[in-house]
């Protein structure tokens, strides 16, 4: 198959996915705050209302709980619904429709029910916004049976995972990061899917496995490139899907390299990094040449002060330092 390429940004890749999806499938509805705003959700929803009208693309009042439930109701009644939360902190008002309702719906009625619902939450942090406008809460959703959680790190995956999420018959939490919105890449112009549940080796290596996703994956790649110059060759894994976790790929890599650093741009305790660490200790302990290391945020709310933000968030330099420590 030859695919036409277009170089676009991460946010416009999402926009392109939505345009193509809504155009090609009359059952898709997008709703949430800011879809017709000139500034709210970046340009991910550019021209959508203009192209498809306010029946298919609905800008909503500030009602996260109801709007998420409405998305679920739409899905149960035969639509494919995408609910967008311009900041995932606001999604906390919607914990009931997400966790009690959507996640459990198929199981608690004994199966056979399609729940084609995408709940799209944007991580939007930095810039001295403080505790309530900075959270990366994917760990919470990953804890819940019945939810899938995807976190694309680049434009190609952003488009392909949005398309897969929309066509999945289960509730999918789609999480993107505003820090990635300007990242550009060649992306096929057609509709294509990136499979949910599959991680990818972005750099083959032998000395250590670095596992990360989304924004942090990009920092891991930069770190890996610099380490290469020092003769250190990490194997870098992009999780792409947090849940279901691609355990096979992680274990295979760790068995090869014998070392693991998990770089996760959220809190350390009881989070995604804990899960991966447990996976490896349960299944590949004997291959480890060094203890598993986790590089995560401090277990503290996000501070406002930019000096503290600088200390709080992780960069490639933190990864380089940790890798060197592990290999010492």
């Amino acid at each position, binding site marked *: 198959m030859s695919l036409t390429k277009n170089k676009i940004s991460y946010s416009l890749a999402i926009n392109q996915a939505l345009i193509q999806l809504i155009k090609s499938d009359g059952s898709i509805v997008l709703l949430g705050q800011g879809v017709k705003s000139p500034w709210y959700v970046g340009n991910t929803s550019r021209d959508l209302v203009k192209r498809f009208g306010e029946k298919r693309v609905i800008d909503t009042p500030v009602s996260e709980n109801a709007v998420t439930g409405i998305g679920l109701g739409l899905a149960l009644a035969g639509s494919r619904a995408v609910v967008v939360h311009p900041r995932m902190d606001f999604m906390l008002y919607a914990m009931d429709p997400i966790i009690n309702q959507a996640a459990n719906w198929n199981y608690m009625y004994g199966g056979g029910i399609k729940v084609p619902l995408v709940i799209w939450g944007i991580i939007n942090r930095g810039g*001295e916004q403080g505790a309530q406008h900075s959270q990366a809460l994917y760990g919470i959703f990953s804890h819940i049976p019945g939810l899938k959680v995807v976190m694309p790190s680049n434009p190609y995956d952003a488009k392909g995972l949005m398309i897969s999420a929309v066509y999945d018959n289960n509730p999918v939490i789609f999480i993107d990061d505003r820090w990635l919105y300007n990242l550009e890449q060649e992306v096929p112009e057609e509709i294509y899917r990136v499979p949910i549940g599959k991680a990818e080796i972005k750099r083959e290596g032998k000395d250590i496995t670095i596992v990360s996703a989304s924004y942090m994956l990009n920092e891991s790649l930069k770190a890996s490139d610099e380490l290469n110059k020092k003769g250190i060759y990490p194997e870098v894994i992009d999780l792409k899907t947090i849940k279901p976790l691609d355990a096979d790929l992680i274990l295979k890599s760790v068995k090869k390299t014998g070392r693991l650093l998990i770089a996760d741009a959220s809190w350390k305790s009881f989070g995604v990094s804990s899960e991966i660490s447990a996976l490896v200790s349960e299944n590949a302990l004997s291959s480890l040449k060094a203890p598993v290391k986790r590089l995560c945020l401090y277990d503290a709310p996000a501070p406002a002060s*930019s000096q503290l933000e600088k200390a709080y968030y992780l960069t490639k330099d933190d990864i380089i330092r940790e890798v060197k420590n592990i290999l010492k």
Partner: protein
Amino acid sequence: MKKSDLIKFYKQMLLIRRFEEKTGELILKGEIKTPCHLCIGQEAVAVGVCSALDKQDYVFSNHRGHGHYLAKGGDIKKLMAEIFCKETGCSYGRGGSMHIIAREQGFMGSAPIVAGTVSLALGAALALKIKMEKRVSVSFFGDGATGEGVLYESLNFSALKKLPLIFVCENNLYSTHLPIRECRPDIGIFKIAQPFGIKAFQIDGNDVLKIYETAKKAKKMCLVSKGPVFIECLTYRQSGHVGPNDRIQSENKDIRPKREVEAWKKKDPVKRIRNLIIDKKVLESQKLEKIEKEIEKEVEEAYKFAKSSPICKKEEINKYVFNQE
């Protein structure tokens, strides 16, 4: 109305106005980075309501909270320092513009989750009721908050328990980019309180005297178990949703009609009280100008204090996660 009250209102409103203008300037200069939702145009609500309160009364606020903080007596230097995210700020640089507090003045905190502090104000009112104290609790929120279910839960609970609580809705006709008619089938917000048997007022939110009188009445009712009370103040923000304007990369993204913005500027609440003072010959303009200079000086001093204050220490990043007492 006492003459001294008029002067007091004017001083407080002008202080808020100049503070917000200075903040806007510093945002454009890049000296301030924390997102600031300025309340230029809405000063009368903060001052009118808080003037009817005592220090011991509680106030809970939202993202657009600088005016509420100052009107409730919060320290101006600590506010500017917080906006600079410095260690000397009212939240020790951890909160920024959207998370400010002055507990010693009964200003219990502001938070930017829409409608997120409404039920907290109920809890504080309930505490007052349990302790049988003659005080009230006030919740400030915007028209956008009427989209959130928790507001209706709070109307019900507060009415059921007859809480000493004043709901103050600042209806500035917009919720970010959405005009109110795209958010609500009926734009008369005060009516949402009526089915719960809550006394509700809809008043001119740019008329500080009217707001003050209504808030005073509301407080009185609360103190004789006739609360809660709901006050809708019709007003308008003259600045951007966030920052001095809604220019993004030099493009104007303010979707509000120019004519509407201009019409509301003519109803400017600060000018209005100033004109009243002159018309009623409360003070001659020379004396007013002296007051105005003093206020500018106060704002300038707050700026100097903030700018010269120490930054937060990296080592203390975990310091306030738990209370250590």
